[in-house]
């Protein structure tokens, strides 16, 4: 007999298995990257800051696996140190966003009423700005350094988490165990801390994982535009910026940092998507 042709519902054979593969692949890539970042001072073949003009713009070779930059610095060493910067900025920026977003979402959802509508208007307002406008303007005003970058990326990306947490709190609020806790006289903050927060952990974790990828992309754009990590400290974005002068000549300078960004962001996205499938469906 023929199978019924019109597919009404998604049915994916062995879906669960495929999803766990995503998590594993993303996780492995990130694990490897973290190891490289942590061990960079010991495993990097050269000092990432050591300038050697005679060796400028050497193509990849056994001595310099990924070649050298216009100042003769080893690109591989700079990429390894760049991984530290990207990961740290990504994680801390998202940490800032998660803390702000969770607080705003919890308060808006739980307190409700006028507080909720004011907070949500603030969220709407922040969402109206193309985030790169705010980022560039604020960082330019404050002067670019790693701390400002982390905080400002965090300050411009908490709105999604806030909406997520708020929605979650609103639906939890009506559930029986929260009503029961309130009925026995638990205080508002206690209920939030003990009952609501644990329940929003999974969706926030997923949003955070995806967010780290986004933050790393943002950092690379800022650094490329010269308003991120400042030279000589290496970051993937500013290596690309410095490679611009040799564009079309030193292809390794343009190719390698981009691949690093792509792989890292992809790994975070895969991991986040895998976690979403596992915990939220």
């Amino acid at each position, binding site marked *: *007999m*023929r*199978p*019924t*042709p*019109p*597919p*009404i*519902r998604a*049915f994916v*054979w*062995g879906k*669960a298995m495929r999803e766990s593969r995503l998590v594993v692949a993303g996780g492995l890539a990130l694990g490897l990257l973290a190891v490289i970042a942590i061990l960079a001072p010991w495993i990097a073949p050269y000092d990432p800051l050591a300038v050697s003009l005679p060796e400028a713009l050497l193509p990849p070779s056994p001595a310099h696996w990924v070649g050298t930059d216009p100042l003769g610095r080893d690109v591989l060493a700079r990429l390894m140190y760049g991984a530290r910067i990207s990961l740290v900025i990504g994680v801390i920026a998202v940490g800032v966003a998660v803390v702000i977003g969770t607080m705003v979402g919890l308060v808006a959802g739980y307190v409700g009423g006028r507080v909720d509508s004011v907070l949500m208007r603030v969220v709407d307002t922040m969402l109206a700005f193309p985030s790169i406008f705010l980022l560039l303007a604020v960082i330019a005003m404050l002067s670019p350094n790693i701390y400002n970058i982390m905080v400002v990326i965090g300050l411009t990306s908490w709105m999604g988490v806030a909406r997520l947490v708020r929605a979650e709190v609103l639906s939890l609020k009506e559930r029986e165990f929260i009503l029961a806790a309130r009925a026995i006289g638990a205080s508002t903050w206690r209920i939030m801390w003990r009952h609501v927060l644990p329940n929003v952990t999974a969706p926030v974790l997923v949003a955070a994982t995806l967010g780290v990828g986004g933050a790393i992309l943002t950092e690379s754009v800022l650094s490329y535009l010269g308003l991120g990590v400042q030279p000589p400290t290496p970051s993937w974005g500013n290596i690309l910026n410095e490679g611009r002068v040799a564009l079309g000549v030193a292809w390794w300078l343009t190719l390698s940092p981009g691949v690093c960004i792509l792989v890292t962001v992809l790994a975070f996205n895969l991991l986040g998507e895998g976690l979403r499938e596992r915990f939220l469906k």
Partner: protein
Amino acid sequence: MALLSVEHLSVSYRHRDTLVRAVDDVSFVIEAGEVLALVGESGSGKSSVALALARLLPPRAVISGRAALKETSLLDASEETLRAIRGGTIAYVFQDPATSLNPVMTIGAQLLEAIVWHTPAGHEEARRLAVWWLRQVGIPMPELRLRAYPHQLSGGMQQRVCLAMALAARPSLLVADEPTTALDVTIQVQILRLLRDLQRRLNLSVLLISHDLTVVERIAHRVGVMSGGRLAESGAVDQVLHRPAHAATQALLRARSAMSFKT
């Protein structure tokens, strides 16, 4: 010869790597002009039987057995035959009229679609037919309603539209899958009365799927009781409902008396 004959029908659903059986070796017939009700608890497989007839089940469903409407074999029909059968000879009315009608299309467009695809009627003719059918199902000012969108009608009116849409191509079998379940109690009575009147007037054959014995008692001639995917018992309505032989039937009857006791 029976209008519809179903023999050894089984339906299973692929779930992960296993098959879960929903309908297990069910056989029955429906004569022309007859109303057969399939009753049973939710999950007893009665809706799967209804949807299997025109192969409207999701692709993860595996169907086996035989079903024939007059001479046309249904379960192995080609895609093209199937399209002619769906809406043409077997028409469906579903449970929830609010979600069964397309929210962005007018009542008229949805009705005309059913007519145009299964009759030789041109546009003008189809429009006249649509108005006529809306009148048949008791919708006032049908010309005006053609231009209305589903959300502008009440639940009862929406279900009447669904009925008109199902009957518009003069099918020989109407499959009504819990047609009153989603409606208010007073509306349920109206729709049921309408269904019975139309059935008598048009000498329709109906496969009625329901969990409500009161509904069944009102319009069915014969009844089959389904339990755990199997047809536990079948026969004339009077006989089955008054002298239930199977535990599943007795349970349904008990549930009904408990319900009526409460109200």
